[in-house]
């Protein structure tokens, strides 16, 4: 298991934002974390990483900071790039947990950076200042940073929001490929179509609780969509894979 949560609860004041969440993610899984705004997706992941005070158990919080950083890469939703560093420098930051204090990046580190840049379609961008790129390009650079960290587990908070359709699909395919190669990946996302198509498993959150957990067709049921999102949708599995299309808001 690359990630195991047992009755994880995160409180904001007296109100539980994540309420008794238990789950386990195994190598090879690409898990889509879905749910309406405020369902607790981000809080679940930050709680699991130990970035928020919580009760219950997370397999990540027992690790020493550097060990944990070699086990899990975290891509926050806020796309923060404070200084105009080059794309290569920024992506190399992902190698931080692998370097001892004062150690310079080795061939292995450079190879990991180059591979991450290739996956995110950023070859040729190395010398450009990251702050001068477009929003979507910045998002890809930040994903590349998380990939360069080269961890068995990746947690990504809305990584594809704001990307063009081509790069959205390419990114989801890259995640699927990495998962197929033995990594475990959990991404939160709002595009249920992409989630249904590319994820091996979906976890649906509603009001801080895990409402449903399973293969896309088992989670995106008519009842679940109505209860949690208040919408109706069309879901079919054809020769092109799973196709999901939201239809209308239920009143």
């Amino acid at each position, binding site marked *: 298991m690359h990630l195991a949560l047992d009755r994880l609860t995160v409180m904001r004041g007296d109100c539980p934002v994540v309420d008794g969440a238990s789950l386990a993610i195994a190598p090879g899984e690409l898990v889509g974390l879905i749910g309406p705004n405020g369902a607790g997706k981000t809080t679940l992941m930050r709680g699991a990483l130990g970035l928020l005070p919580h009760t219950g158990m997370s397999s990540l919080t027992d690790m020493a*900071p550097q060990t944990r950083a070699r086990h899990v890469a975290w891509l926050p939703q806020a796309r923060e790039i404070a*200084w105009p560093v080059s794309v290569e420098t920024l992506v190399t930051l992902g190698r*931080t947990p692998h370097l001892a*204090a004062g150690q310079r990046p080795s061939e292995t580190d450079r190879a990991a950076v180059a591979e991450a840049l290739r996956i995110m379609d950023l070859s040729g961008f190395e010398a450009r200042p990251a702050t001068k790129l477009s929003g979507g390009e910045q998002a890809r650079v930040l994903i590349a940073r998380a990939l360069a960290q080269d961890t068995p587990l990746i947690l990504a908070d809305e990584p594809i929001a704001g990307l063009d359709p081509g790069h959205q699909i390419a990114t989801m395919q890259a995640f699927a490929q990495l998962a197929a190669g033995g990594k475990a990946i959990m991404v939160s996302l709002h595009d249920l179509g992409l989630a249904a198509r590319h994820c091996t498993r979906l976890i649906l959150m509603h009001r801080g609780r895990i409402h449903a957990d399973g293969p896309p067709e088992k989670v995106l049921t008519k009842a679940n969509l109505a209860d949690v999102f208040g919408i109706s949708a069309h879901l079919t599995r054809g020769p092109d894979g799973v196709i999901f299309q939201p239809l209308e808001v239920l009143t």
Partner: protein
Amino acid sequence: MTRALFPGLGLLTTALFALSLLTGPAGFGFSESVSALITGQGEAVTLVMREIRLPRAILAVMIGASLGLSGAALQGYLRNPLAEPGLIGVSGSAALGAVIAIQTGFAAAFALALPLTALAGAVIAVLLILALAGPRGGSLTLILAGIAISALAGALTSLVLNLSPNPFATAEIVFWMMGSLADRSFSHVWLAVPFMAVGWALLLPLGRGLDALTLGEDAAAAMGIRLDRMRLQLVLGVAACVGAATAVAGAIGFVGLVVPHLLRPLVGARPSVLLPASALGGAAMVLLADIAVRLVLPERDLKLGVLMAIIGAPLFLHLIYKTRRAL
């Protein structure tokens, strides 16, 4: 670019250090100065070189390095190019601490009482700034908090000096607000050295964490950076550097703003490289400013802070203009 930067800055600092030793109202030749400094020949010249000019130049290097380093570290931590110890009231609070120590007589109690009290003043200011501006150091809160802390520290410094029984003390508000290296001696060097060494030792290793912070607190924490330890190291390091510098030379502003700003493009904006570069650059900057004050107005003690403000304030305005959308 970066490869040539450190040798270049080192060379510049060395050259300015030598020039500083050769600058002064008593004009004597290069060879005379050097032989007096090294061999001790020529009694009066030796005294001038070893006891007046040498400590002054050494202090310029130490203070410049401390202020440049503190500025770069604060900016890296708050991810804001406007963060500067002088502007956000850290230097002013250190000056208040120093003035209180001197006027209450605590400074005479034991050797390091003066820089220690200045350090305490600086710690309070840094903690206040971090509490008020928050972890992300938004420009508006940072500047507003800085104005409030500077104003309070300045007023209390004036009050303490006004209450002094010493008629000269009252007139010295300018020194504490603007800073000067005139007639500093080796006793001041020894007073500042231990604190600055501690400050450098605390701040220089922050580079890795500051680099990671480029991506935000969450990302940095998830990359194995211990933010709480880093914050403690930053607070104590900045306070030790700024406290010691202010205790011996008054509050010299803008060094920590101008130097990192000039050097940032040359280090590829990497906070970790900017730290040692700003230390060297700060030393060169203060040496240069201290040479300039002696050349511009040789008869008067033109305050270093005046010169730095003339250079730094327009740059500060430019930075505000550039970052105004974030305000």
